[in-house]
């Protein structure tokens, strides 16, 4: 494999974005076009540096992060939860979830109703207000390349397929379906790499988490 650095004019911006955990898709036309054209060279170069570049045929690129044992990544859990909620909410409304999450958009004005309807679930992800929803979910979605925010309209990008794949794998998980009907749920926790910010936030929020869970439990017992 010959790697011609002169051709890789977008190397620095591509690496910077991927290294941050960003998913590159058509929303970044120049880096995306170059990654598509020089896919093998980029993959070989990054591999030599110890990074595995994933080239998803549905139109996006990202680095595979290292598995971090049993450490739980709250961001991934929150974003997955948000996707599940959105799919169900849209289906309930008679809208097509795939049309929205695969290139469609969602208005900021739709968030309050969503938060209200799924408050019990959002509480589990430590999201109780619209500001928190925007900060902890929407902002992270845009930071990681899953969505674009254009003046309060959130347009979902092809990397959202990673979350839709989660839905598919959950659907195929017979164990999960079976365990839903049993009293015991020995389900493993999601393992995700946590960046430094996450660790700090999680440590600070441990009390809040306990409080949020207590509130949720209380609400559940009242209901």
């Amino acid at each position, binding site marked *: 494999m010959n790697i011609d*650095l002169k051709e*890789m004019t977008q*190397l*620095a911006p591509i*690496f910077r974005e*991927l*290294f*941050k*955990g960003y*998913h590159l898709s058509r929303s970044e036309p120049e880096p995306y076009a170059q990654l598509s054209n020089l896919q093998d060279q980029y993959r070989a*170069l990054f591999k030599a*540096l*110890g*990074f595995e570049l994933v080239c998803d045929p549905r139109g996006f690129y990202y*680095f*595979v992060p*290292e598995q*971090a044992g049993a450490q739980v*990544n709250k*961001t*991934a*859990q929150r974003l*997955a*939860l948000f*996707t*599940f909620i959105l*799919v*169900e909410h849209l*289906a309930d409304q*008679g809208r*097509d*979830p*795939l*049309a929205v999450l695969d290139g469609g958009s969602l208005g900021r004005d739709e968030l309050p109703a969503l938060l209200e309807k799924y408050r019990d*679930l959002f509480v*589990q*992800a430590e999201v109780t207000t619209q500001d928190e929803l925007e900060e902890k979910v929407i902002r992270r979605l845009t930071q*990681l390349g899953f969505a674009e925010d254009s003046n309060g309209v959130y347009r979902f990008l092809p990397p959202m397929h*990673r979350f*839709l*794949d*989660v*839905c*598919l*794998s*959950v*659907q*195929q998980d017979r*164990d*999960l379906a079976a365990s*839903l009907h049993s009293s015991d*749920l020995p*389900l*493993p926790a*999601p*393992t*995700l*790499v946590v*960046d430094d910010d*996450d660790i700090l936030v999680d440590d600070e929020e441990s009390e809040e988490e306990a409080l949020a869970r207590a509130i949720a439990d209380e609400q559940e017992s009242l209901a």
Partner: protein
Amino acid sequence: MIEPKRVLRALAEHWTLLEPLCERFDAGTLSLVELRNQLALQLPEGTPESVTATLDQWIRLDILVPVAKSPNRFELNAQIHDFLAYLRREHRLGLCLEIEAYLRHLERLAGYIQDAFEIRDGNDLARQLRLLDMRVRDVLKKLANDEQALVGVAERAKTSDRQIPLRQRYAEVLATWDEYVEPMIQLVAADGAFEQGVRRVEQVLLKLLGEQARLGQLVDDDLLLRTHARILEMQTTAQLTLRKARELLLPLREEARRHNAVTRGAALALAAIRKKGLDAVPQASLPLFTRPQSTFLGSASQVEAYVYALARFQPKPTQFPRASAGRKGAPPRAPRTAREMLERCEQALPLPDLMSWLLEQEPEGATDELLYWFSRLARDTRFSRDRLERREYLTREHRVSLSSFALVANANG
């Protein structure tokens, strides 16, 4: 008996009125009042009498027929409806069963043809061959119609309102797949009814050609060859129609199935989270997407710096020495061999301190080279050694702390 010319003339004269009505009749029947309202819309300047006259004419010509047991509701005569659908290039998907029935009929006709030939009835043979040919044309017509109808099904699914749930949008696709494509796959399969029927008819026709050559002609060979060619055309068309159907509908069907799976998966995940909390979603299925970790032996910042250096990489020409250029300074000395050093050491015995002697011999020697010689000479069997106290020695570049040896000749060596 209604004169065909009058029907055709009425259709031609009233085409602008009939064409919009076709769509309404595609969806169901119309009452007399609805019909009058529709026509009134089309004929804003028409009087109620002229509307009545037009409707009367259509009913008299059997273009419109009353619905059974509902004399006040009307529908288009089925034959006229089909004719108009053909003119409007509207295609309604038929049933796979119809094709199967046609094929059974083709097989029966092949049997009659064989019988007619065996009793040498030329007229009956020609008649049966004509029937066979017409039946094959029916199948071809039907396949062509079905193909267009399938295109329509796919187009309707793709162009319908994106806000409608996919399950509803693709309902027609899923039904078409189950009711038409799936049975067609069975029918056109290598061991299916279609292939069997075609093979049987083909065998009869080929046998007939051979027998005619042997026993003399009952019918023109061209008729047999033409029918045979049409049978093969029908076979190819059926396979092409099926392939087109799969190409058109399979992606949509997969999309619908995937959509159902996604919706169900999301509901399942939410149910699990409600019951057991956020950790209920299996970790293996969740994507990892935070800051990636390199397996490179270096810190993240070193890798970053390295990549940026790579991105700014500018090749520099390498200067090689010219063959003609002379060396500056003295030529480098060839490294000493072990034999040379051992001989020199032997000649210098007894040595009160090996390391001091080495430093005297090689004052410009590199530290690693001196340590190598120290180790090599101290271990040689021709010397006997005594360990000295640890002390420091200064090489050209380093301060070395070691326990040297005093060497004498080995009494046994």
